[in-house]
């Protein structure tokens, strides 16, 4: 339940602030999304540029890149995920504490990109872990990454703490750990996690 905005402004003039637990909780989560400090390929260079003075990701409360998954809220899959790297990415995601978010940055991370028909590149990280925001581009410009941050913040802002659409970390039934794929003789096993990903239906 949101507070009427005009009433809120009037109360603010009198030095009174009114809010709801949900707004306060979402404001806290969205204003300090700390990304994990890891990059996979050339998209990582754009990610680094985004944090530097010209684009200044600090404006969005995300300047603190944590070198440990235990302290990070957001995983930016910045670049090509090879099949050899995919189990490590899933393992790092499992080690992050809830609430956690994933941005798949660039053509490779969202679909395999130019390597989609190859034998060695994972065809999108969403085959193993849930992705909140996908950014296309090869590589996406820093503005695109900032757009993804703003999209993620908007998404967090609109979440309800109770009810059917509550976030995963408030849902006891939702999976907390995602299976790490094994190295098989011909491919990763399993080739995808059916709980998080299904083959997109082709409408003809």
């Amino acid at each position, binding site marked *: 339940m949101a507070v009427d905005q005009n009433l809120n402004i009037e109360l603010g003039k009198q030095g009174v602030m009114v809010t709801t637990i949900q707004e306060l909780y979402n404001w806290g989560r969205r204003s300090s999304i700390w990304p994990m400090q890891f990059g996979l390929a050339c998209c990582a260079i754009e990610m680094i540029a985004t944090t530097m003075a010209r684009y200044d990701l600090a404006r969005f409360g995300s300047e603190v890149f944590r070198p440990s998954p235990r302290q990070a809220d957001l995983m930016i899959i910045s670049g090509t995920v090879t099949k050899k790297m995919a189990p490590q990415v899933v393992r790092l995601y499992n080690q992050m504490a809830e609430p956690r978010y994933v941005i798949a940055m660039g053509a490779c991370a969202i679909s395999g990109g130019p390597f989609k*028909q190859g034998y*060695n590149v994972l065809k999108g990280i969403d085959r193993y872990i849930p992705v909140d925001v996908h950014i296309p581009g090869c590589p996406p410009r820093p503005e695109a990454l900032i757009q993804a941050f703003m999209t993620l913040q908007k998404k967090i802002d609109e979440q309800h703490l109770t009810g059917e659409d509550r976030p995963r970390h408030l849902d006891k039934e939702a999976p907390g750990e995602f299976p790490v794929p094994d190295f098989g*003789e011909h491919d990763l096993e399993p080739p995808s996690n*059916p709980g998080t990903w*299904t083959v997109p239906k082709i409408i003809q």
Partner: protein
Amino acid sequence: MKSVEDIKRAIEAAVPGVAVTVIPNPSPSAQHSLLIDAQHAVSVAEFLRDDEELALDYLSNVTGVDYLDKEIAEKVKVTRQVPKTVDGVEQMVEETVDETRKHVEPGYLQVVYHLFSLAKKHGPVIIRMRTANRTDQVELPSLTPVWRSAEFQEREIFDLFGVVFKGHPDLRRILMWDEFKDHPMRRDYMEPDDFEYEPTPHDEVLKRAQAHKAKVAAGEVIQ
């Protein structure tokens, strides 16, 4: 630098019993190469490195090539005895018939080394080696003891083509994981069927998409 023919003669003089073949390159670059038999490859490599005139001290590149089994059909004129009735009498007559004969030339894996000399500032000298076939006799001598820079590239060829280098100090897969069984750069390699087919596939991808659909219909694959 010596011409490739001169290098061939120098090798034959230095390493007795070696079989060296010049493989000509008809393109304008004219980078002819030397095919060397596997038994003498290490002594040839040592000669190329240590010879004072050649002094090929720098190995810049090692790569692999896969040649599939090739079926060759050729037309041959054959004379044979054919029974024929001539003037009411049955007799054997010689007749010339065109016959198509097919034979399979076995494929092989080939390894190519590009050599330069930093001391003499010349190159490249290109040497090649071939395996006996593509299946069970895929061993070649490693040239890592001669040029250390071959180590990782020979591992890569072992990984992607399946050439086994004898005498390599650390022959493991370098790009794919250890449990992986295939050799992805071979021309008959089939990648796992985990591709998402776009709405309008064409050519090769269309064929694979149809095969995939048939598999789904037969219940072999889930999606």
